[in-house]
């Protein structure tokens, strides 16, 4: 049986060949796109950070010489002439940096050896690129001898007899590197001292010297920038980053650096210049790529949609596109419709209908006269529109929790307002209009939950939102949705929109993948999993309470003074592994105290049936912060959760422990 290849299968840039990087490239749809972030011809070094899967590697590789060449009909020279820079890409993971430590060797020796090794590695990449260029140019005249003479001078020891051509230099550098590899790999076995190795080049002499000499003596490249693109910076040890930070500080023309790494992967900004730190703004610029994409909602939406289209086009997986953007994308992925939900509700067994009214009746039993209960239920009923009916119940609980008027009167008032809303749904003073303005999605979700229908996270816009500015999350969701679609016998993207139910199954799998992939290694993994689950549970309980205090609740805030060092550590992990996204860090009015707000990552929000669009924020008290962030004590968490539940659920008992004035 033949079946279509999933166009979203590859989600990691490291798995792509150069040709595929080019083929699947999608630029940011604003200004000059990612060029404006990488700024390849600018001297100022850039540090490009981002969460896992934010697209750093794809971007870094795109600016490398191999990709420049592909973009210019396989001509490196044409690309350099056109771009005025040449990108030298290095994946720091490939350096196997962990081997440059330990084994009872002096720390200082490791520092020197690593620096030397790094110098040799980058020099080889430059030489290889240069040889590629020479080969392409054919008969172009340049004085190789002058280049070689000057390169001999870069070494601290006489090396004239070691190489006489660029080709020989390449072999010589390779030989030196292999010697280091051999000694370092065997030092634990041989017992030899690493400090016995001899370093033939001072730091930077090749990294800066080689590009300078080449651009001086090779025609046509005198003005170009040699751009070292160092990816996966997080894979370097602290002292190794410090070494490269020093090179960044002491940068020499025509060289500049672009550093790519996880945003928590920068272990230090220190340099070896008296341990001083690199200064942002004057010595480097920093961009957090997923932050940029998250902050520019419109741009990210367009970007993500372009990624989707590109994958489909490249895979010949696309049907005929008709209509404007909205119609086109909604034609791919079904979106939620209220009428669809109403139809499902209508088909429910009579015994299962109006579950919220049945629950309300139970809550009122024993508190009111049965005749009064009957009248209340009658007043709140609105069978022709389940959303209005559920809003009536929502409003009733609100009235009950406020205790302002009698419950029968409250139900009469709601009935009157519902009638007004029916006639003029846009009347601003109408209580239904006011509450639906803010709580419409919450009420719909309550309705779905009470009717045992899955909450809807389907549709292109929601999927984009859930990916939280991280393209890999977007692709992972699309990948799993595609798999379910094929399994369900659909012809995705070609024959009608992928149904909501299929999308939800794909999203469930994507969540599972995320939780596996983002599992924090080591001892801290387990407590972090406990904490995120508690946060999710608490937000869920409050959101689905009878009278939730906030709408669209998927965020919480913490007072900065409540954050103990262990809590801070847990919050850092949750943020680093993208379970939480820091939203704001605001000072409270008339106070020096900061309130920090975090949102649960949209992708995992469905796990606790949380919304993906944030509006309200749950402000956590000191006691709640302590209970949530102490993974050892489940009892304290259960207690604070119960307190919140009783506060927001009928019969709205006041919590046994009242909050202090400053909580």
């Amino acid at each position, binding site marked *: 049986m033949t079946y279509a290849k999933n166009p979203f299968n590859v989600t990691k840039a490291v798995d792509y060949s150069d040709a595929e990087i080019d083929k699947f490239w999608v630029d940011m749809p604003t200004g000059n796109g990612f060029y404006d972030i990488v700024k390849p011809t600018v001297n100022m070094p850039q540090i490009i950070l981002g969460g896992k899967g934010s697209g750093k590697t794809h971007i870094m590789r795109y600016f490398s010489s191999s990709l420049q060449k592909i973009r210019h009909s396989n001509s490196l020279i044409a690309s350099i002439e056109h771009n005025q820079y040449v990108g030298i890409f290095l994946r720091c993971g490939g350096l196997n940096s962990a081997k440059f430590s330990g084994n009872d060797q002096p720390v200082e020796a490791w520092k020197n050896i690593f620096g030397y090794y790094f110098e040799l590695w980058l020099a080889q990449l430059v030489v290889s690129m240069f040889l590629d260029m020479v080969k392409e140019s054919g008969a172009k005249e340049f004085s190789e001898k002058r280049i070689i003479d000057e390169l001999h001078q870069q070494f601290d020891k006489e090396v004239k007899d070691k190489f006489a051509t660029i080709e020989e230099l390449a072999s010589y550098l390779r030989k030196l590197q292999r010697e280091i590899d051999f000694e370092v790999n065997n030092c634990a076995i041989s017992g030899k001292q690493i400090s016995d190795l001899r370093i033939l080049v001072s730091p930077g002499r090749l990294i800066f010297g080689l590009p300078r000499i080449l651009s001086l003596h090779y025609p046509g490249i005198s003005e170009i920038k040699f751009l070292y693109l160092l990816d996966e910076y997080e894979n370097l040890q602290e002292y190794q980053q410090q070494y490269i930070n020093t090179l960044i500080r002491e940068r020499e023309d025509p060289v500049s650096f672009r550093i790519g790494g996880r945003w928590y992967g920068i272990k230090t900004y220190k340099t070896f210049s008296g341990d001083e730190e690199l200064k942002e703004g004057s010595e480097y610029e920093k961009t957090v790529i997923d932050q940029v994409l998250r902050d520019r909602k419109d741009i990210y939406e367009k970007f993500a949609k372009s990624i989707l289209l590109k994958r489909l086009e490249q895979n010949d997986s696309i049907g005929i596109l008709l209509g404007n953007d909205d119609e086109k994308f909604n034609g791919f992925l079904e979106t939620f419709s209220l009428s669809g939900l109403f139809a499902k509700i209508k088909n429910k067994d009579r015994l299962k209908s109006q579950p919220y009214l049945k629950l309300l009746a139970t809550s009122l039993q024993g508190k009111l006269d049965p005749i009064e209960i009957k009248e209340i239920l009658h007043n709140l009923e609105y069978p022709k529109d389940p959303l209005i009916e559920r809003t009536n119940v929502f409003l009733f609980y609100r009235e009950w929790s406020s205790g302002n008027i009698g419950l029968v009167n409250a139900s009469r008032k709601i009935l009157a307002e519902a009638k007004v809303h029916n006639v003029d749904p846009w009347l601003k003073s109408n209580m239904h209009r006011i509450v639906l303005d803010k709580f419409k999605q919450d009420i719909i979700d309550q309705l779905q939950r009470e009717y045992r229908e899955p909450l809807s996270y389907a549709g292109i816009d929601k999927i984009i939102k859930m990916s939280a500015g991280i393209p890999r999350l977007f692709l992972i969701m699309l990948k799993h949705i595609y798999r379910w679609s094929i*399994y369900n016998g659909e012809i995705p993207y070609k024959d009608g929109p992928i149904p909501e139910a299929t999308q939800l199954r794909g999203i469930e799998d994507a969540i599972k993948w995320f939780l596996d992939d983002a599992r924090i290694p080591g001892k801290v993994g387990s407590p972090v999993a406990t904490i995120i689950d508690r946060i999710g549970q608490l937000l869920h309980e409050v959101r689905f309470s009878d009278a939730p205090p906030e709408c669209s609740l998927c965020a919480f805030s913490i007072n900065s003074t409540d954050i103990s060092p262990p809590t801070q550590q847990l919050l850092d992990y949750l943020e680093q592994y993208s379970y939480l996204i820091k939203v704001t860090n605001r000072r409270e009015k008339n106070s020096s105290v900061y309130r920090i707000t975090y949102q649960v990552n949209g992708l995992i929000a469905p796990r606790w049936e949380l919304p993906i669009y944030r509006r309200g924020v749950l402000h956590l008290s000191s006691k709640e912060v302590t209970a949530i962030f102490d993974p050892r004590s489940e009892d304290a968490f259960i207690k604070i959760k119960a307190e919140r539940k009783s506060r927001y659920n009928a019969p709205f008992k006041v919590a046994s422990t009242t909050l202090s004035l400053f909580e």
Partner: protein
Amino acid sequence: MALEDELYKKIKILNETTWEHRANRPSIDKWLGNFSTSKDKLHALFLLSQFMYFGSMQMRELLKSLYRDLYKYPNVQKIRKDNSDTLDEAFIKSEFRAWQNNTRFLGVGNPSESGTHLLYFFRQENKLGKNLFINTHEIFTANSRRTSLADPTIRNYVFIDDFCGTGSQAVDYSQSLIEDIKAIDPTITASYLMLFTTTNGQQAVISNTLFDDVRSVVELDSSFKYFDPHSRYFKSPPSEIDKDYLQLLCEKHGWELYYSIHSATDTEPELSLMADRDKLGFNGSQLLLGFHHNTPDNTLPIIWYDENTVDWWPVFKRYNKIYGL
């Protein structure tokens, strides 16, 4: 997660990884449509989630294993043993080549059946020469006075089959054939090598034929019998699944399905007896497996039945043999 959901999810993964996308959701749902109640459907889904499928890639690997582990290595061992455990590689290679040149590989069954069908892939995967393969009619030559071997230099006949359930087909097919070969020259060896066999099937072939060597790559013991007391399928079933209920369900439908199959060739009272015997797979095999090229009739018939008499939708259909025209 509800059991039904879990099972669908498990089947999805099987479908993507090993089932070669043969059973997508609509075809599963269509198959479940054969069952009437939701309890029946859930039990059927549970059964399906345990179906063992060997796709094209697995079959090719098994054919490699059959040649290497059941033919080549034992003969290399024998050569070494007969020559003082020699390690002389060139000598071993040359002896093995000679041995192989004196071997002919044959399929079990007529050229349209799966045993012979597999020979093509067997030859491809193991890079063997065409001359090593013959049809059964090429074994003998007959003149007016007597039947003799067509090529007396051939010392080994290796019969290859994909599957041996009860052994009856192998016995029927080869019993007289091997007897005839041995009658002409008792020193000739005949082997019956299979990809899969049940323990009982293998024993039947050993007991009822003159094969010198009967072996298989995969042997299915009684734990592969679906409702056997030692069945591997019910080690820790979900609480919603009742083994006895499922057995009755399979028997009820299986009886009806096999009754329709046998009705083409049998009449009462044998017909009912045959349906009773085969309701859980041919001769009560109770297997739950299928291959890229077909599903054996030893598998529960509710999986594969695709005849016209009973309105039944198969999930892994069997291309049934039609005997006669």
